């Protein structure tokens, strides 16, 4: 089978190549295609019957003809060779070098699709990661092994935020830093360069494995790229015991590539033309984050999802939110006020925060302070709405305090420099300065003891 090359495809369209009468081809088999110029393309079998074999061509079917296209079935799935030398390198979607250095040679190769982790083998993520960013550490804490996406929009500073997270993330009381697996799907050249330079300037390039598919690279390759990158991440985390931070950017381009192929295959379209299996497909990627019992390493995932027309109910952010353990949502309104990082607090959430903060992890009052800040800010936003209708002067005294609270919260708590690395204690102290703008009676989410210890109400001044 391996030696045989087949010619005369029966059809080629929108990334799919069809061959008739090739018996016994395995589903998911890796395929190498030679076109009439002798150039090599990669493909994968996505349907196999005695009569018809359907091959998805990663580089697309442009410029293929039916007669002079040779197809070889490798009788093996897509595999990635694994070695510690992955770090410091740049690859394409199937793990071939993009940095003009030799390919990785290793006897250890793994199927890029991985195998689902047995839920029983998972260890619950609960170690607080300090990102140095108040909006995250204080209100939406990240823990090791979590998948926490950034929901963004075109033109919003998600790249800057991701770079800051990569730079500053650390575990309290531990020296070891994260190694980074950077997976870029459909990224523009300038964005790719931004990350590369940022890693370089911070001297971490040697600790980063990059898998890059640029905006002008073939879109179908984006379907396999995150799987390849995560296979590398799993190796680094669970074979080499490293703590891995995986950045996937941008999952929206991934999903669009999936839709492109699904449409070509004739799959039944659901919301906005995306196939019904978009959820399961994305889950296969996101669920590869986590921790496993008896393994020291971990995979923490920060995917970037840009929301088409800032719509959080669009299928891509929507289904992502159902799979990931929370989301950090960026706000155009705050960004327009030049506030960085423009984190939209009400819809942002970290589901795993509860087990990573508090007495033994950050500080005893942290869970209640976070809940109180959320509640007070939500109330303050309501008041701000009201003030925009009836004017500040018409408001009762308490409501005016809430207005001040909202302004101060945004200016002092949310806003910080792209290089400003705050400790979580600093973050909590700022939180209490803000809560001290409000009288203790309305702060029902914190305890009496918290109030006595941290609340400095100066009354009516």
């Amino acid at each position: 089978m391996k030696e045989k090359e087949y010619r005369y495809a029966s059809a080629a369209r929108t990334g799919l190549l069809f061959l008739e009468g090739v018996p016994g081809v395995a589903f998911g088999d890796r395929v190498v295609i030679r076109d009439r110029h002798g150039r090599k393309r990669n493909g994968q079998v996505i349907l196999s019957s005695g009569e018809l074999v359907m091959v998805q061509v990663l580089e697309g079917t442009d410029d293929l003809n039916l007669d002079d296209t040779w197809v070889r079935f490798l009788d093996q799935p897509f595999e990635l060779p694994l070695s510690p030398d992955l770090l410091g390198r740049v690859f394409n979607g199937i793990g071939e070098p993009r940095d003009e250095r030799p390919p990785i040679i290793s006897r250890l190769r793994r199927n890029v699709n991985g195998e689902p982790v047995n839920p029983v083998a998972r260890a619950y993520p609960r170690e607080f990661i300090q990102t140095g960013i108040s909006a995250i550490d204080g209100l939406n804490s990240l823990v090791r092994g979590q998948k926490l996406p950034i929901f963004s929009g075109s033109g919003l500073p998600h790249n800057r935020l991701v770079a800051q997270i990569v730079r500053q993330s650390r575990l309290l009381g531990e020296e070891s830093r994260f190694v980074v697996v950077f997976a870029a799907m459909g990224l523009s050249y300038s964005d790719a360069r931004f990350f590369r330079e940022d890693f370089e300037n911070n001297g971490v390039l040697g600790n980063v494995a990059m898998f890059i598919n640029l905006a002008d690279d073939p879109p179908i390759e984006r379907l396999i790229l995150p799987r390849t990158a995560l296979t590398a991440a799993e190796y680094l985390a669970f074979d080499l015991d490293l703590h891995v931070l995986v950045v996937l950017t941008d999952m929206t381009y991934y999903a669009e590539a999936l839709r492109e192929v699904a449409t070509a295959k004739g799959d039944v379209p659901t919301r906005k033309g995306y196939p019904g299996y978009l959820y399961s497909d994305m889950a296969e990627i996101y669920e590869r984050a986590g921790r496993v019992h008896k393994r020291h390493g971990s995979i923490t995932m920060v995917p970037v999802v840009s929301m088409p027309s800032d719509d959080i109910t669009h299928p891509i952010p929507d289904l992502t939110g159902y799979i990931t353990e929370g989301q950090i949502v960026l706000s155009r309104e705050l960004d327009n006020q030049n506030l960085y990082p423009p984190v939209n607090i009400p819809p942002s959430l970290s589901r795993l925060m509860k087990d990573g903060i508090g007495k033994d992890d950050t500080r005893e009052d942290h869970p209640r302070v976070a809940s109180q800040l959320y509640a007070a800010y939500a109330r303050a936003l309501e008041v701000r709405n009201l003030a925009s209708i009836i004017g500040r002067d018409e408001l009762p005294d308490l409501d005016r305090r809430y207005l001040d609270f909202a302004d101060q919260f945004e200016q002092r708590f949310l806003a910080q420099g792209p290089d400003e690395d705050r400790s979580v204690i600093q973050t909590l102290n700022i939180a209490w300065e803000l809560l001290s703008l409000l009288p203790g009676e309305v702060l029902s989410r914190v305890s009496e003891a918290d109030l006595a210890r941290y609340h400095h109400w100066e009354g009516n001044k």
Partner: protein
Amino acid sequence: MKSGRIIEVNGPLIQARLPGIANGEQLRVGELGLTGEVIGLDGERALIQVYESTEMLRPGEEVVPLGHPLSAELGPGLLGGIFDGVQRPLRAIMETAGEHIPRGLALPALNREKRWDFTPEASLRAGQEIRGGMVLGRVQETRAVEHRILVPPGIKGELMELAGAGSYTLEQPIARVRTPLKGIQELSLLQRWPVRHPRPYARRDDGIAPLLTGQRILDTFFPLLKGGKGAIPGPFGAGKTMLQQQIARWTNADIVIYVGCGERGNELVDILESFPELTDPYSSRSLMERTLLVANTSNMPVVAREASIYLGVTLAEYYRDQGHDVVMLADSTSRWAEALREVAGRLGQMPVEEGYPAYLASRLAAFYERAGRVDTLGGDSGSVTLIGAVSPPGGDFSEPVTNHTKDIIQTFWALSKSLADARHYPSVSWTESFSDAVEAAARWWSREISPEWQARRAQALDLLVRAEELSRIINLVGVEALSPAQRWSVEAASLVREALLQQSALDEVDSYCSPQKQFALLDLAMSLYQRGGELIDSQVPVSALLELPALARLRRAKNSYGNEQLDALARLKEDMQAQLDELAENYGEGRS
């Protein structure tokens, strides 16, 4: 049945030539021995869905029929366990194969070596006529739950021999029965049941007792009955999983079956790690002793996800038939429906709404119909309560799964994004939720807790709805436009929201609220509202009421006083009344 050969592989769906095979039959597929199920026939071609990844499977490989439909293994050893959607034992798989789930690994669901202490039913004698559903004997499965070994449904005949007290493995015979049609049959602690068929019972009854969850917004405001069907729809981040876990923790059912259907792996880990440490408030035993998990997480093969719901409800019915009250939580039925959609799409079936097949509504209805309180074949009474989470895309409740579910269920706990955004948890909306079970629940509350319950509940709901309207006015013209009575309503509603509806799952004191404490808090808030209203009618300003020290105490009462401190709540009520009386007197004197 003869084996056949694969003709086509298309993702999780394959075709094989298998003349004479029946729909629903189980198969071993290919050299790896994957498990599959026939879902359609087309001449000699069988359409087969495979529960495992079909990667590297090829036309020409063998397919072997197993001669039975997808069936659950039933017997001692289920509780405390965790199984995948087709009942493979995930703990045993980890011991055998490590941290990943390999393909084609067929392990029996229940441990065949473990011995169980069996006590035969004292009243049974050899020669006696027995029939399906009768209790043969008992096994203490966990310290919290007694497992009754039943004659399997469909068996009827003369008991020839019943084993004495002793320890038996699952497959050792414990009884022999002479049946008229099938001759002598041996019964053991283990039996099987096809998961897609409801288990039989003698008679169906209406629910009479509420399923208590310790959550005020559910128990007090939108009750669900034991044997009822409920749904929790909500957009992501609204707290569906948290609420389901709270129900699993604190419900007064005997058995909890939690089906993680297409959801996050870490959520099941959370249960696996936390439940053994938590104590059931009713039996004082570890929660894991009454809990059983079915886990088909989102990254596990999609077809087994479809089966997981049926497996879960079959296990629930099995314990119901032993006379237990069982709750099954399905998180999430939307993922189940999507699995249905995916298979339908690959079969080329005509999509109707949002790509879902036309039979979505009937499948959903048939699933929920397996809930109910019944008289069992053995003459006992048991119930299955079904609670399904729904994950509507974009939080849009008009989408097909939410919409059809709403028509079927009795209690609808709608989660609201805006409440969750303000960290008001549980984020159950009091305007969109409903319960058809209030009348039946009221009989229980009135008998067990207080005759005032129904009136107080109605009063509180009415207040909340009215305050909602008033806040629309405030948003247009400001609070000054309201009359003092209206302002008092707004303030009282905000008190109800804070002191009653919000309940933190993470707060040790408040995570579980007993029905007695629920009513005490409700009664406190409502009597304050009522008496306060009277004072306002006699010219007491709202601000004076808001400054009452008792009011601040009431706001924190849920966390300050535990379930056993009802006397403290009674004292708070007295203090509050005294303060209100004093206020009335002061203002009465001021006027005269």
